[in-house]
């Protein structure tokens, strides 16, 4: 990781107008949801909202128009995403399809897959989940054991995925499976795009410690999909997944998922806060501003066709630390009972409980730091 220059974040067109249009649209169309749901923006499922957002052209923005997309620049999409998150809009239903599955299908998918899936994604009607983790393959993703065997009828899939966010409402899964018999580690893996209503698939909920149903176990029992389910190049699944994770790690969701708490803290503090609260607000704001610069720079680098794997990991590491620290630091300073019914109290409680997951999802803190260390030339 030699030196670091900020990539200029310079989306085409009138960014101020894009923000203003979206804010006006949200003022009319965003449901007056619960404050805790707003703090959980990209995990909040609302199919009606996703459909409306898609109709308005804010989903699949970067996809080609011939597949129903908007053919917009990735940095225009970035602006839209950060506005949606800052507003706490319920974008969870289409989140993964819009963020990574759609772009991945454009990049690696067959023409048939593009025509079949992309229009639904862009409409905000087709949802996707990511089949990576398995019971024996968590941080050690290369230990994936779910197999897909090529037969005359198609791919025959056996195995199990776990911690699969949104599998229970998704239509498709992009799964990393072992297609080459006898292969080991990160060789012999491929990506398959699997319709989740295919016979032989069982999805079971896992309820998290906050009481929410976000992730699932997904079982594959002799599941048969067509040979056309292969995405990209057979045996290149590892390389394709690694590239995809760059999209997952550096976005504004890495520092904006707790933004509702910062906003509530500022509102609760009033115009003339006491010294300790003012100091906390100042420190959190400085961190948030810095993270936004890093995230925008990384997005600009991605948009320029480069692979900012290490920068993306820096954003995730710092963003997770910021979001985990924030509720703890607010709790340490603001006198607010555990069961306080006000906005600040409810947000605080919800984020304290949710925050352990921030440095687990999308790669654990230890794995992310390992990637950064490799970028530094230490591994």
């Amino acid at each position, binding site marked *: 990781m030699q030196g*670091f220059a900020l990539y200029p974040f310079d989306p085409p067109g009138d960014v101020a107008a894009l923000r203003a249009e979206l804010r006006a649209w949200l003022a009319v169309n965003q449901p007056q949801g619960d404050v805790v749901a707003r703090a959980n923006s990209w995990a909040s499922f609302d199919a009606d909202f996703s459909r409306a957002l898609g109709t308005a052209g804010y989903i699949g923005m970067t996809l080609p128009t011939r597949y129903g997309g908007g053919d917009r620049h990735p940095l225009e999409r970035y602006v839209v995403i950060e506005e949606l998150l800052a507003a706490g809009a319920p974008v969870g239903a289409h989140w993964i399809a819009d963020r990574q599955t759609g772009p991945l299908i454009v990049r690696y998918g067959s023409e048939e897959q593009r025509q079949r899936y992309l229009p639904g994604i862009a409409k905000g009607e087709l949802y996707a989940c990511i089949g990576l983790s398995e019971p024996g393959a968590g941080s050690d993703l290369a230990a994936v054991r779910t197999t897909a065997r090529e037969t005359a009828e198609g791919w025959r899939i056996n195995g199990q995925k776990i911690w699969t966010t949104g599998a229970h409402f998704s239509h498709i899964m992009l799964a990393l499976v072992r297609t080459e018999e006898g292969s080991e580690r990160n060789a012999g893996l491929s990506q398959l795009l699997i319709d989740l209503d295919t016979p032989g698939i069982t999805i079971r909920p896992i309820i998290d410690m906050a009481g929410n149903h976000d992730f699932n176990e997904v079982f594959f029992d002799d599941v048969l999909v067509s040979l056309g389910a292969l995405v990209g190049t057979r045996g290149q699944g590892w390389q394709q997944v690694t590239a995809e994770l760059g999209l997952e790690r550096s976005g504004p969701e890495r520092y904006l998922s707790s933004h509702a708490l910062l906003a509530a803290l500022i509102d609760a503090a009033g115009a003339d806060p006491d010294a300790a609260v003012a100091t906390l607000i*100042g*420190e959190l*704001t400085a961190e948030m*501003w810095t993270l936004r610069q890093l995230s925008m720079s990384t997005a600009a680098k991605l948009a320029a066709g480069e692979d900012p794997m290490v*920068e993306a990991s820096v954003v995730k590491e*710092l963003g997770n630390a910021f979001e985990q620290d924030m509720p703890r630091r607010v709790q340490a300073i603001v006198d607010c009972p555990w069961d306080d019914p006000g906005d600040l109290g409810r947000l605080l409680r919800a984020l304290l409980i949710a925050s352990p997951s921030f440095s687990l999802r999308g790669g654990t803190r230890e794995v992310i730091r390992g990637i950064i260390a490799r970028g*530094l*030339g230490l591994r």
Partner: protein
Amino acid sequence: MSAAREMLCDTARAVFAEAATAGMAPIDEAGFGLLLVPEADGGFGGDWGDVNAVLQIAGVMVPDLPVAGLIAPDAVQPAATVSLMAGAMGQALALSIEHVNTRQQFGRPLGKFQAVQQSLAVMACEVRAVEAAAAALAARLDAVGFDPAAADFEMAAAKLRANRAVGVVTAIAHQVHGAIGFTAEYELNRVTIPLMRWRSEHGNDAYWAAKLGRQVSGLGGQGLWEALTAR
């Protein structure tokens, strides 16, 4: 980096190398005091991006000379200090990486130990954050014609972020260096001591946190986002 800025940096490195023993004279003679003066007035006509680049080099090579004071007006000294700090932190990281890749213990380089790797990853994140803060502040100063009042938010956020990184960066740099880094002879202290000093100069953490916190409180929760995205 533009070719012109690349040349400027090359010049800065050569001049600062001389200044490290000769003091300010070579820097004065090379005309660095004219960096921000418009070309029409006989200056170099540089922007704050140039200042940021030059001061990052100064933070490594001549941290004890008043280069920032020569180049930039008093009102933007906090911004100049952020650039010095970004440079010094980058050097602390570079020295640390070099050391752990070279120094062997238990039969292998220190950098092969996960505990050391994880520490340096934490440090690298802090350094990248400060570099980003310095660059974003520079962009803002250039956008508003170096007007410190129009860049007050960024100046507060960047100096505060840089201050907060000092503890982590100096602690990890020294920890991975072991005893050699604590000697007067080894070059690490030539960046870590200035970093400790700069944290106090032109506003410590408490000063900027209170200032920024009060500014943001006046905006309100929604107002903060609107203000951030309007700049």
